[in-house]
């Protein structure tokens, strides 16, 4: 989308399928093609490793996950940095999990000792209240991986009495408004909430026609 008046943008096909892509797919898949495709799919699989208690049985780890009552997820480098600067410390929080994934934009690993400049996706738990979980996801989760990420992260949690808060950032230039964004005082907050969320929201709701994308949207 154009970010300023006069910018020329090449728009992707709104038909949803490029003519080249459909011609490509019409060709029969050879066994070699299938093998390559399966390898690629395996490479793009996501692994979520929970390290809830060293030496604990898988059952108790699963129980602990089910007991989660508050889950705060920071997606993107800015949101992850916010948590690092203002919330996380080694005294009150402990690492309880890590996501291992690969895509064209980034690769994460098992290590939990990360630098702020690394791409990572880590889970923390509040020591004083183990039902509070936190996730810092500074890596990009590709479109074909988002559903898997959700299934594997939320799979063990109970949906009832679980409150999820997602923190994310977007460029001001992407904000759609009647006025120009040049003079808009930033940064500013906007929120979206499900109808089940009954508490007060701390900022105005996101106005139409603005949208949320990627993992926060998923």
């Amino acid at each position, binding site marked *: *989308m*154009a970010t*300023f*008046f006069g910018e020329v943008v090449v*728009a*992707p*096909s*709104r*038909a*949803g*399928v490029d*003519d080249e*892509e*459909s011609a490509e*797919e019409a060709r029969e898949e050879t066994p070699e093609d299938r093998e390559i*495709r399966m390898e690629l799919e395996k490479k793009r699989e996501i692994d979520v490793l929970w390290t809830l208690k060293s030496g604990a049985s898988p059952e108790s780890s699963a129980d602990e996950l089910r007991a989660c009552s508050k889950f705060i997820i920071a997606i993107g480098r800015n949101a992850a940095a916010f948590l690092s600067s203002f919330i996380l410390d080694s005294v009150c929080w402990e690492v309880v999990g890590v996501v291992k994934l690969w895509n064209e934009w980034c690769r994460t690993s098992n290590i939990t000792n990360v630098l702020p400049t690394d791409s990572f996706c880590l889970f923390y738990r509040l020591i004083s209240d183990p039902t509070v979980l936190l996730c810092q996801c500074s890596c990009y989760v590709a*479109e*074909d991986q988002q559903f898997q990420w959700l299934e594997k992260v939320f799979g063990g949690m109970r949906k009832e009495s679980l409150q999820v808060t997602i923190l994310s950032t977007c460029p001001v230039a992407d*904000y*759609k*408004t*009647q*006025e*120009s*964004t*040049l*003079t808009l005082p930033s940064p500013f907050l906007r929120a979206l909430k499900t109808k089940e969320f009954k508490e007060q929201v701390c900022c105005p709701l996101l106005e*139409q*026609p603005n949208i949320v994308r990627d993992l926060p949207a998923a």
Partner: protein
Amino acid sequence: VYSLPSKKLAVLQIRSPFIKNKYRPFCQTLLSWVKSSKCARVVLLSSSHAYQRDDEQLLGTPLRYLLTPDLEKAVGGLMQELKWKEMEKVAAYPGINDTEKVLHIPGGGITKLLFTESCSKGIQMAVLLKFCSEGDNIPDAFVLVNYLNEWLQLIKSEVSASNNSTDTSSQWKIPSSWRLLFGNGLPPALF
């Protein structure tokens, strides 16, 4: 997904492009759901690149329709009464062999795949499409939905006293997602 139970209508709006190589499985999944949920009819609203029209298609109405054989039996006659134009087939090998004709919907995305699959699966499907160009497609949307309304009569068209037309444009509600489609307001500093 939207629904209007009073008219037994469900609407699927596909707002995003497909992940590479996943559009075929998507079509299969969608059509097996159509069959398993015993959906009576499917109407596919679509479009095709205006610039790919041949000389004849440049004249007259830019609207076309297609019916699967199962739906043709039910409503084929109605289309004749409405004087609707069926989407023409084109030569498979233009210039070389003009007798072999195939269905070609350039810019139609998954339209052709859904239609041909529905034909073979015995699904009652109608395709309603308009030839259009890249750009502001809001007027095209109105034309297409009025076309649909000629058949389904979702909104009773008020015959306007001044020009005896059955244009229902003013009765449709414009979605808020159409606001600011072409960018924000201008920075005052520009002037």
